[in-house]
């Protein structure tokens, strides 16, 4: 029968270790209540070894290698639900950032392609590029002289869409000639 401690004085500082014989007795005694493995366990072991060949692998007593431990940890991590939700959240954030910071100016577009925001008009429209050093005043003066109106642009590469006011083909060709001959214009073609 165990006796209660009569003197309850606290041990100060480093506690002294328990007597070895008492420690051994405690561990032996408490093991008595743990039953041996049931016969069913050995039956299951026999089942397991029936299909198992002898191994020439490394000693299984040796702890797993550092790499194996890391691989196991990684495997445990990626199988966690929290990790899956984290990945999904990260993907959502990346998509949101992509759409937030992308604009139509960043999209690839052919020179002859129609531009977003181009006003609809019955007159034929033209794609025009001006020299890099052309001023706005010079461009406006040239377009006014040719009877042209900007209906789109400029895009990222300085491309304008213009339309000519002249309903007559001959006048329109005259205006085109003026534009083509201008030193301010580097490129002009009908837009489709």
């Amino acid at each position, binding site marked *: 029968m165990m006796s209660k401690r009569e003197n309850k004085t606290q041990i100060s500082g480093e506690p002294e270790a328990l007597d070895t014989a008492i420690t051994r007795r405690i561990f*032996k005694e408490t093991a008595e209540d743990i039953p*041996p493995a049931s016969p069913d366990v050995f039956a299951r*072991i026999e089942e*397991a070894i029936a299909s198992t060949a002898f191994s020439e692998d490394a000693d299984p007593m040796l702890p797993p290698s550092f790499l194996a431990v890391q691989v196991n940890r990684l495997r445990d991590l990626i199988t966690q639900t929290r990790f899956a939700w984290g990945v999904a959240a990260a993907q959502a954030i990346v998509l949101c950032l992509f759409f937030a910071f992308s604009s139509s100016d960043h999209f690839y577009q052919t020179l002859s392609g129609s531009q977003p925001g181009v006003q609809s008009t019955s007159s034929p429209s033209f794609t025009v590029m001006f020299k890099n050093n052309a001023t706005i005043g010079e461009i406006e003066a040239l377009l006014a002289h040719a009877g042209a109106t900007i209906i789109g642009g400029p895009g990222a590469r300085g491309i304008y869409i213009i339309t000519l006011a002249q309903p007559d083909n001959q006048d329109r060709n005259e205006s085109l000639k003026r534009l083509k001959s201008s030193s301010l214009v580097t490129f002009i073609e009908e837009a489709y």
Partner: protein
Amino acid sequence: MNRQAGPDPLLSLLRQTADGDRKSFQVLYEETNHRLKVYLYRLVGDRSCIDDILIETYTQVWKSSATFQGRSLVMSWMIGIARNVAFKEMGRIHYHENLDDHREIIAKTVDPDAGDRKKVLALALAQLKPRHREILDLAFFHDLPYREIADILNIPVNTVKTRVFHAKAALKTALNKMDIDSNNL
């Protein structure tokens, strides 16, 4: 330490097992399963998986019996295998990262005066850190030499000695907290 001098009594059984002798393997199992189960009982928090760990351990023992090189006692070798299997199992089901973690203790109200001595002692052991409980089990239940314990735990012998000392002190503290006079056990 109480290591008995002389040949390892389990060695011949393991050698015969390595030759494919099922009967010897069964005798080896009968001689050792309780000791392994006690070790696992004190190491693993979830008692429901102990049988599974035992089965995997003995399967490994069967498979690897021919690789045993006699550098340790057969019992130490088997405990080492059980330890690795248990850690793998505990990692798989996300118990705890390492033995330093405190384990959830099943709340029990045990009255030392009720005469339930073993329950009180078991409760005191449950208060220990798992690494302290493990090293005391190896040293004082399995009576393994420090060198063998060092090999199983993969730590230096001096660390084993230090840890045993601290574990014994922790056990004494646990008993004191339960108002148990450890000098009168």
